[in-house]
């Protein structure tokens, strides 16, 4: 199950999708909005994606993970748009026969997702400024929130 959603991520549905009598282990990872980063306060996040390519890359990630680990079911759901404090922006869930593969595959999926899937995060800081996050790059300048 690969999805881009604009509202809250339905973790119950995700767990139901991956749970199976073929699997003895389920690992679910949620990435949630943290309030403080190096002492600076976040008010919320906004995510933007290149929709069709993001879906294609997520499907490639699942396919590649299935060549590395004996995955029973896999679900990757990313939220776009506005995400409040403490809310999940991404969910990765994997079920496998044995638990070590589920942990490894889950971690590989989220690590790789963060490097290759065309999705971008904008930090809306509590001081009213906003900033697109482009890892490895000095973001050109701080700018007021876009309208």
């Amino acid at each position, binding site marked *: 199950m690969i999805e881009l959603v604009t509202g809250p991520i339905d973790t119950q549905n995700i767990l139901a999708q991956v749970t199976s009598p073929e699997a003895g282990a389920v690992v679910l990872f949620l*990435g949630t909005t943290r309030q403080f980063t190096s002492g600076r306060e976040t008010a919320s996040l906004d995510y*933007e994606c290149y929709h069709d390519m993001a879906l*294609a890359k997520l499907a490639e990630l699942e396919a590649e993970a299935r060549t590395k680990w004996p995955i029973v079911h896999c679900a990757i759901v990313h939220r776009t748009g506005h995400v409040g404090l403490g809310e999940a922006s*991404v969910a990765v869930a994997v079920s496998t026969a044995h638990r070590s593969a589920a942990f490894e595959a889950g971690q590989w999926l989220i690590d790789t997702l963060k490097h290759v899937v*065309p999705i*971008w995060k904008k930090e809306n800081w509590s001081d009213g400024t906003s900033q*697109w996050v*482009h*890892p490895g790059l000095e973001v*050109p300048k701080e700018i007021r929130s876009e309208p």
Partner: protein
Amino acid sequence: MKLNVKLFAAARQLAGADQLAVDLPEGSTVSDLRYRLAMEHPDLAPLLPHVLFAIGSEYVGDSKPLADAMELACIPPVSGG
């Protein structure tokens, strides 16, 4: 040949547009596109050395030949998750 380049995140914000039309000579590559964008859109220039380009859903290298009417995407370093 005429190309269309989709922009995202800081690239979109710096350019003030979500896509740009670019006119390049026949035989141009992604490298030429990167150079032309920097010339025509100085606000984008600091970002361009760090972006990838994609055609369809595939990243393409700088030597990739371009063709008329292609749709490309300019992909600044991603930060999903």
